[in-house]
């Protein structure tokens, strides 16, 4: 029990090695191990969140090997895992989505190709390890290492499907490495001026630093790196290829969690490290956040516009992700209680809804081979459950009540109004309206499109084959249903969510009055 925060990393990391080896003997056993491991990881995340909420200050710090991580005058050399309401909740979300993804991918990976199945599960587990590590670590360099673990497993997972995917993966490596390098240089500057890498320690020491140019340079580099990893416009170009060519079974997980975890890192950077009021660091951070806000507002609209122009559903959803994650970044940039609550709600909602959309698209593809919007003709009627799931998740992304997306946008809007940032208000409203446009186009196709889909010139990518009579396997429907239920629950129990969890996530000095 005392070591839960270590187990969050240890379980998936250890099983990432065990699973490929086991798959040489039995692919079935390997799959069972990965499912069990992720179940325990989810429980560990949830358990440590529960425990952290009972502690004073709601912060559970776990130091490895008993080495002191935060200095009390001395030099911190230990590494720390920190569970607080934000990191605990996000870790639980990541682990749970990983579990659902493993269940979902089961029927799509033939067990007789043992090694392939083993490697896939192993990579998924390392990806989970990386994301969880980024979430709960209290050390900036450790975060870089986990960032690279995440990225490397994502590159490898992506390259599995074919030649276009390989090329997309190589581009992703180039962009991702530039981002990571920028992060590392920014980190180097922070280390040079403070002599520490621990976040809590850094916040104290950085508040005494007077050199605003140096802090500004470091923050700008790190922010650029994170915005690239989040795929905010104009740093988004890698994402659409990744989402289009990656194996359909892992995309729900990647789309649901990866950008959220990076957004969380942005939150940590600005609200944990640079939070001491009146310090130079805080002042510089506010200025950088103002720029982030403008970029996010532009990206919110631009992502939606780009999404409207797409033929391929997955590419459309990728640009929609750009728009949605920008809304989260905008919430962080506005920075008052309502906007931050809005950002958290939107992040949670987007994690469930976008994962659900990709599962639904994967299911359409599985039965009909359709990937372009024009081939989705009336599939919503032929596959009622998947159609409903897609529609509800789409409504939630659009922000219609009573889904979570509505409340997220509502809080975000009221945050922008409180701050009298009318430009942001306009961007949020326009972005939401445009998202209604591109989703309505797909939903219309799903329910009232011409029946047999002929009469269209067949274009590359997702040429439909004959509609398969076979029903979807249970394991491909169940995760979708669970995701839809969570999307709805985030909306229905929004008040309880805010009062029970989200309000404790707010950084010190930002009060929530309901």
């Amino acid at each position, binding site marked *: 029990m005392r070591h839960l925060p270590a187990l969050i990393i240890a379980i998936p990391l250890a099983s990432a090695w065990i699973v490929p080896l086991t798959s040489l003997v039995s692919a079935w056993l390997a799959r069972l191990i990965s499912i069990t491991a992720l179940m325990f990881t989810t429980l560990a995340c949830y358990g440590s969140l529960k425990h952290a909420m009972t502690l004073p200050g709601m912060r559970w710090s776990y130091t490895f090997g008993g080495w002191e991580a935060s200095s009390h005058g001395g030099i911190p050399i230990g590494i720390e895992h920190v569970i607080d309401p934000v990191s605990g909740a996000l870790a639980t979300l990541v682990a749970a989505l990983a579990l659902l993804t493993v269940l979902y991918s089961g029927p799509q990976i033939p067990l007789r190709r043992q090694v392939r199945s083993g490697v896939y599960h192993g990579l998924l587990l390392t990806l989970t390890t990386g994301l969880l590590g980024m979430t709960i670590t209290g050390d900036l360099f450790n975060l870089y290492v986990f960032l690279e673990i995440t990225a490397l497993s994502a590159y490898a997972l992506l390259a599995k499907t074919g030649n276009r995917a390989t090329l997309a993966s190589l581009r992703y490596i180039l962009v991702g490495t*530039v981002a990571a390098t920028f992060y590392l240089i920014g980190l180097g500057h922070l280390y040079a001026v403070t002599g520490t890498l621990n976040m809590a320690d850094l916040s104290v020491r950085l508040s005494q630093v007077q050199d605003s140019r140096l802090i500004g340079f470091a923050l700008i580099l790190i922010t650029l790196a994170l915005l690239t990893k989040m795929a905010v416009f104009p740093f988004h170009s890698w994402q659409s290829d990744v989402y289009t060519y990656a194996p359909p079974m892992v995309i729900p997980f990647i789309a649901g969690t990866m950008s959220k975890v990076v957004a969380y890192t942005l939150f940590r950077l600005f609200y944990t490290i640079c939070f001491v009021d009146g310090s130079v660091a805080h002042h510089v951070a506010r200025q950088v956040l103002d720029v982030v806000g403008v970029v996010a507002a532009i990206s919110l609209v631009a992502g939606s516009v780009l999404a409207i122009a797409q033929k391929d559903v997955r590419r459309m959803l990728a640009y929609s992700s750009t728009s949605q994650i920008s809304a989260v970044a905008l919430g962080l940039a506005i920075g008052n209680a309502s906007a931050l609550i809005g950002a958290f709600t939107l992040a949670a909602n987007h994690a469930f809804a976008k994962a659900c959309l990709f599962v639904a698209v994967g299911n359409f593809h599985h039965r009909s081979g359709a990937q372009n919007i024009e081939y989705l003709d009336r599939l919503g009627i032929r596959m009622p459950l998947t159609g409903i799931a897609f529609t509800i998740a789409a409504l939630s992304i659009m922000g219609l009540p009573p889904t979570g997306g509505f409340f997220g946008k509502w809080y975000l809007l009221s945050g922008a109004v409180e701050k009298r940032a009318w430009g942001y208000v306009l961007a949020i409203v326009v972005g939401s309206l445009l998202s209604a446009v591109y989703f309505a186009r797909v939903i219309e196709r799903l329910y009232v499109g011409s029946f047999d889909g002929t009469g269209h010139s067949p274009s590359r990518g997702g040429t439909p084959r004959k509609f398969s009579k076979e029903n979807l396997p249970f394991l491909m429907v169940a995760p979708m249903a669970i995701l839809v239920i969570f999307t709805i629950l985030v909306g229905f129990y929004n008040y309880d969510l805010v009062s029970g969890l989200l309000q404790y996530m707010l950084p010190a000095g930002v009060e929530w009055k309901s």
Partner: protein
Amino acid sequence: MTINMVYGHLEYYLVAILLVMGLYGMIASTNLMRKVMAMNIMQVAVIVFFISLASKQGAMAPVLPLDENHHVKSVLAHEVVNPLPHALMLTAIVVSVATTGLALALLIRINRHFGSLEESVILEKMVKE
């Protein structure tokens, strides 16, 4: 004044030059292999940067020396270079090896399928498919 600015910070100019060279190479070259090599140059720039952070004038390697009776002699902090950036860069080197290895593996696959690593040739073949 200007001489001092250059002289005391030569290594940082080296870092900046390497970084910009790497970035430029990744953007400007049309060959994928060259892009990966430029990416490596960029990663090396970071390593040089961190190592130069650790250095001190006249300091020795952070290893505790033994005296004639084979007892460990204590050293003062300013007598040894800071070992932490070195440790960090060991990790960064491992990361860069992994990234490069993966990139090279992908390059082999791309070359096998498209028969070239020139972007223009690959794009042409992709359009034909």
